[in-house]
């Protein structure tokens, strides 16, 4: 029997991550296939084996969480002042800025200024080259107008001392800002009535902000990611 098509499913089945339909199909197949049944056992043996592989714990000394600053001693403060200042001051500013999310701030500021975009175009082949030379990364620009999210244009946002590209989309009466960052970030959830969604694509982080419903945001995020393939 040709069991190739079940090969990947067996792994998902073993992890309890297979969809119900696939599970049903696979279980029917397993009833009549000794070979695949044997593989289910093999997967179990392998997992058990992996459990005894070496697990390295972080060394207690040497790695410091940036959290130990409870006691305040003048001497140690003076001694570490130079290094501490270079580390703590940026953190402090980042914290303060973080009280209201910078992505939300930029989105609101752009809407309030009446100038949502600096380049107006629904043609992705105009928006992408416009970013070149203004920002140091090349985002993937998609127009999802056939799916209800129309590309309006692009602008350069300033975020954590970086100039980053932001694409603007319109969905009904709602605007959506899609900002692209060079570093990894995770922003998912709600802030002050705005929804945030983030995902990674070829080393860049895409962050979407809008006042749309959560379900619409999810739809946008998944459409955009599907466009990547």
């Amino acid at each position: 029997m040709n069991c190739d098509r079940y090969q990947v499913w067996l792994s998902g089945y073993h992890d309890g991550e297979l969809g119900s339909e696939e599970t049903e199909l696979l279980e029917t197949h397993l009833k009549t296939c000794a070979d695949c049944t044997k593989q289910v056992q093999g997967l179990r043996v392998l997992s058990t084996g992996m459990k005894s592989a070496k697990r390295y714990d972080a060394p207690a000394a040497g790695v410091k969480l940036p959290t130990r600053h409870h006691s305040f001693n003048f001497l140690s403060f003076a001694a570490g002042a130079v290094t501490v200042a270079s580390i703590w001051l940026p953190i402090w500013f980042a914290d303060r800025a973080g009280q209201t999310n910078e992505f939300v701030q930029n989105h609101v500021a752009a809407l309030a200024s009446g100038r949502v975009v600096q380049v107006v175009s629904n043609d992705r082949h105009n928006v992408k080259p416009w970013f070149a030379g203004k920002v140091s990364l090349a985002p993937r620009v998609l127009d999802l107008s056939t799916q209800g999210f129309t590309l309006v244009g692009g602008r350069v946002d300033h975020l954590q001392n970086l100039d980053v590209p932001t694409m603007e989309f319109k969905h009904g009466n709602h605007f959506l800002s899609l900002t692209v960052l060079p570093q990894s970030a995770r922003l998912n959830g709600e802030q002050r009535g705005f929804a945030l969604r983030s995902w990674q694509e070829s080393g860049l982080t895409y962050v979407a902000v809008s006042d749309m419903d959560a379900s619409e945001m999810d739809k946008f995020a998944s459409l955009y990611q599907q466009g990547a393939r």
Partner: protein
Amino acid sequence: MGFFRRKPHEHDLFERRVGIHADSAYNLARWLLGNEEDAKDVLQDALLSAYRSMHQLVSDDGKTWLLTIVRNRCYKILRKPPLLELDDAEPSPIRLEEQVMSSLSLENINIALEQLAESHREILILREMEDMPYSEIATVLGIPVGTVMSRLARARAALALSLEKEEVL
């Protein structure tokens, strides 16, 4: 001094959400990089970077967040991207008998794991050691959930093959 007084609360929050996953993060880095020094540096670096951008952590996913940062830094040190073409190969059937496994020492398992390609090693660590669901693995690796399943199947086949070779030796 205002910010010094404000810190303890933030420290606690950071420790609860992110700091508690330091062991998992170190384990991943140690397995990817193969030495203690680099793994320590990566963890230290990642914790600081995570702390700086903690305001971006909205939901309760400190573990996937920290592991994502750690993994990205590991590949920077390795100076190569993970081998993605491995995803194209058909996974071979896994034929591991219980006896094979019991005849192997722990040392064999560690060696077999070390010999795997990084993209296979890391996904096995996330799944088998960290018990992470596919959705979280997908986030850390930046791939679709469907790819997690197929890559895991290939990684397991590769590990089984590597173990069989160990047994022959």
